[in-house]
């Protein structure tokens, strides 16, 4: 299934449209991050193969992107694969890589829709740990969408927040070494800007887990957190709207 769906492919019911319009009256997060957890538990629950759970998870991502687009969310970051996930069984890691290959190829075929919708895609993480062909495909997807500016999808693949922070420290030290940065310029703000992903407004984790598992730790330090019991493939528009409402309360509480 495609990542970018045509408008008529995910037609909302009138009540969903109404809710969407009501939501837009309040503050909308600029950047939403998702930990797409629960694909394997979904597969076990439905008595299907694990890979089927992951495939359904990707389909859900396409749906969620459409909901975000309708609300006017400018940037979405998803935790697709943690560097820690390489510890899983060889078969599962291989099937996940195969799924990534297939989906990246599909995204490349969608370049016209991506251009029409202005979607920029960035694949972020320790890409060197991935098979070479996937690294090349990821680079190509990033290069064909780099000039799109309406919204941005960051896919964290082979990612951990600690690695990202260490890489930022290395980048800062290189700038110190070549003289483009002075010691007193190393601030909270500079460190945040050196990271690859900007700060998050709303972080959502599915499947009832209540931790961030090394995902965007710096970026989420002021974000509104939402943990929902729904498994990722079962995450519904109502779960999403509930998270947005919580964000609106969060902003109201911040102002008060």
């Amino acid at each position, binding site marked *: 299934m495609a990542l970018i769906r045509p408008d008529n492919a995910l037609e909302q019911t009138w009540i969903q449209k*109404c*809710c969407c*319009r*009501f939501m837009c*009256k*309040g503050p909308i997060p600029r950047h939403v991050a998702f930990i797409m957890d629960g694909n394997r538990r979904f597969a076990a629950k439905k008595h299907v193969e694990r890979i089927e759970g992951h495939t359904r998870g990707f389909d859900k991502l396409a749906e969620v992107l459409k909901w975000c687009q309708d609300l006017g969310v400018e940037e979405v970051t998803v935790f697709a694969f*943690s*560097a*820690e*996930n*390489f*510890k*899983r069984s060889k078969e599962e890691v291989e099937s996940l890589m195969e799924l990534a290959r297939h989906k990246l190829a599909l995204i490349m075929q969608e370049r016209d829709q991506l251009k029409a919708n202005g979607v920029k895609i960035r694949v972020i993480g320790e890409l060197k740990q991935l098979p070479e062909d996937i690294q090349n495909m990821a680079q190509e997807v990033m290069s064909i969408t780099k000039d799109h500016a309406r919204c941005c999808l960051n896919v964290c693949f082979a990612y*951990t*927040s*600690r*690695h990202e*922070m*260490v890489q930022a*420290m*290395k980048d*800062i*030290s*290189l700038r*110190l*070494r070549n003289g483009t940065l002075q*010691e007193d310029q*190393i*601030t*909270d703000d500079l*460190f945040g800007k050196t990271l690859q992903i900007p700060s998050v407004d709303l972080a959502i984790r599915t499947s009832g*887990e*209540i*931790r*961030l*598992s*090394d995902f965007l*730790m*710096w970026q*989420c*330090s*002021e*974000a*509104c*957190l*939402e*943990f929902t019991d729904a498994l990722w493939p079962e995450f519904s528009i109502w779960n999403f709207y509930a998270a947005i*409402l*919580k964000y*609106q*309360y*969060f902003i109201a*509480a*911040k102002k008060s």
Partner: protein
Amino acid sequence: MFLRQTTMNEWNILLRKTVRNGLTQAESFLFALLRIFIYVVQNVLKLRRIHVVGYFNSIRPFRQIADVSSIAEDAQRLPKVPKHLLLLIDEKNNDHESITNMIVWSFMMGVTNVTIADKKGCLENDLGTIETNFRERCKNPSLQLCSKCVFRLAGKVTDSSVHNVIITSPKTSRQHFLTSVKKTCLQMQRNDALQETLNPDAFSGILDTGKGNISDPCLLIVFGQRFTFHGFDPWSLRLTEITTLPSHCGLSYDSFISAFRKYAKCEQRWGV
């Protein structure tokens, strides 16, 4: 004829504008209604929770405070207890009585380190008061176990005890992290080998030197209306289980222990 048509057109435009404005206002009104509805539902849910607690009163009374034996019983029923508890308070006032209660309950449950951080940073000035309150409570013979507890501000390394209470604020913890970042960047600038070899474990080692061998928090309880980290040091919270309670003021034992029950249900999979 022409004049009449113009007037009709103006009327049409005016009518459309009025309808559009009316719709926008109706939407705002409905949005406000929706928010009120959700607010009411949330409070009804809270009331229902109280009702449920009332239902269980027949089995076990709701406990505002608890004695040592019932805390020990609760601890035995839980499959796991956090070794390091982080309490993050974002409220107008700090209730010292409740804070002392939470420290005592935590130690009785089997927690060894309690870190308390308040958004405003006021608790850092109240370290002495919190310690005095706690020592006063430890005069009770059943609480002798925790009397050797060490109270300190974050970053002030002293000899760690079996039980430690660390007082900090999100700002202080973040500043400590940034100081380590700056130090590491400067070291890397001078040392090529470090630039190549630095990894998350190595940086954790640099950070831990200021912590006195206290591990990262296992459970974080956020008190207040906003469920967020409030800018707390991001490095130490990567695997921390996070939960929230509306307020720490006048907190009951049963509400506090609900966070421990939630933690006990969590399963760490370490990526597998």
